[in-house]
């Protein structure tokens, strides 16, 4: 199977994000719509129900480097969140603690990352973690 080049992949993801294909529990798009390198992205995750994250909207910054999707994007929470895989000072998602980034596959997308983070919030151990006040940021 031939590899889809970075720009095509990101354009596809951009379209999916803007048109709202995919589940509504997450959303993503370019931080600056004029950014031709398509490096910096915004993401949001709607906290999963039946957890301390319910009804919260978490904002994230996603950076797709020049080697994306061969290499995972850098993902950083802007909204404060208490999650084992998130560095509590910077908000960064620590790749070695988060399986989707650690075992990155080329077929993964930003949506994969956001949905998996959301799943991570909903795990039995994480869903009851005390969470900082909504609206606070890293």
């Amino acid at each position: 199977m031939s590899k889809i080049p970075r720009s095509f992949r990101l354009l596809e993801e951009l379209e999916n994000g803007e048109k709202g294909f995919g589940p509504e529990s997450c959303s993503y798009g370019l931080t600056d719509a004029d950014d031709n390198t398509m490096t910096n992205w915004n993401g949001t995750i709607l906290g999963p129900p039946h957890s301390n994250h319910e009804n919260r909207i978490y904002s994230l910054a996603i950076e797709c480097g020049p080697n994306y999707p061969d290499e995972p994007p850098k993902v950083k929470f802007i909204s404060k969140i208490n999650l084992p895989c998130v560095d509590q000072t910077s908000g960064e998602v620590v790749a070695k603690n988060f399986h989707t980034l650690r075992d990155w596959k080329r077929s993964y997308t930003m949506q994969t990352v956001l949905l998996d983070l959301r799943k991570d919030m909903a795990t039995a151990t994480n869903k009851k973690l005390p969470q900082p006040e909504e609206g606070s940021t890293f």
Partner: protein
Amino acid sequence: MTITIHVKCAQDNWEVPIEATATIAELKKAIAGVSSVPEDAQRLIYSGKILKDPETIESYKIQDGHSIHMVKSGLHKKSAGSAAAPAAAGAPAATPAAPSMAAGQTGGFNPLNDLTSARYAGYLGMPSASTFGPDGGINSAPDQEELLHMMENPVVQSQMNEMLSNPQMIDFMIQSNPQLQALGPQAREMLQSPMFRQMLTNPDMIRQSMQFANMMNGGAPGGAAAAPGAAQGGFPAPGETTEEAAEHAAADANTSTNTNTNAAAANPFAALFNPAVNPFGAMGQGQNAGANANTPAFNPALWASMLGNAGAAPAPAAPDNRPPEERYETQLRQLNDMGFFEFDRNVAALRRSGGSVQGALDALLNGDV
């Protein structure tokens, strides 16, 4: 210029026409008009950004036909406390979350998870009604002929092939089999070898080995007769205990793997289709492998438990980790064409029906999802 924006909220989807120069506050007012969600309870998300009231639609570069998500807050939060609300109108993302949460909780990759989705209803290899006796118990193991028949089915064959060429599936098989774990890296090599694949998928080879099994069994009666023992998971079958049988086969396999003759390929299946080692026994109690766990060497019984898994769940053959919109792309389009626009419900319905549009329609119309 007037543009149309799709507003999505849980199960609902509205189309809102609005001037591109309008502010977000004005947009919220327009949404309140169609959705009965008051402006101050609306939180709008577009392209990963929370939209702020004083900004304009233009400034966020929202264009005609684009979608924004709406999350209800405030009012909704109060009613959510009463627990009834999520089930009723709101349920923000409850539907999509259910499957993903389940998957999240097991952490790793487990294709058998999917079994609960009834996605594989009607698949070959699942115990059929005839498997259960009048008293509801299992009264006959799958007949050898049935198994053969199953293996000759090109669908099953291709699924087995696919399964064995998926490294993740191999990992899973190894993890779920203590004996395979003990084998270490060899196990992976073995499972991935074309030879092994051939063994598992070639009906002729299986037929051969079944004859072999019958011989080894000292002409023991066929599947059904010995099954009571098997169905009870390791209770002695008439004449010969399961352990004896398995060890018998194990010893045989050991010698023949060394000699590396044609029989080597056939032998492991002696146990596989030995009625005493019943795939459904493995499914029901997971003890097939356990019963023989004290045999550290290459143990054919583990093929049985493996094939037990595979036979019971042909679907792991195609563990599919693509996001649903990709996996069900064509089906979703069909559902859209039929006027079902609620992505989450459509996906949930397709999950339940195993990708069948017809089944999904039934589920959607019955309100099952």
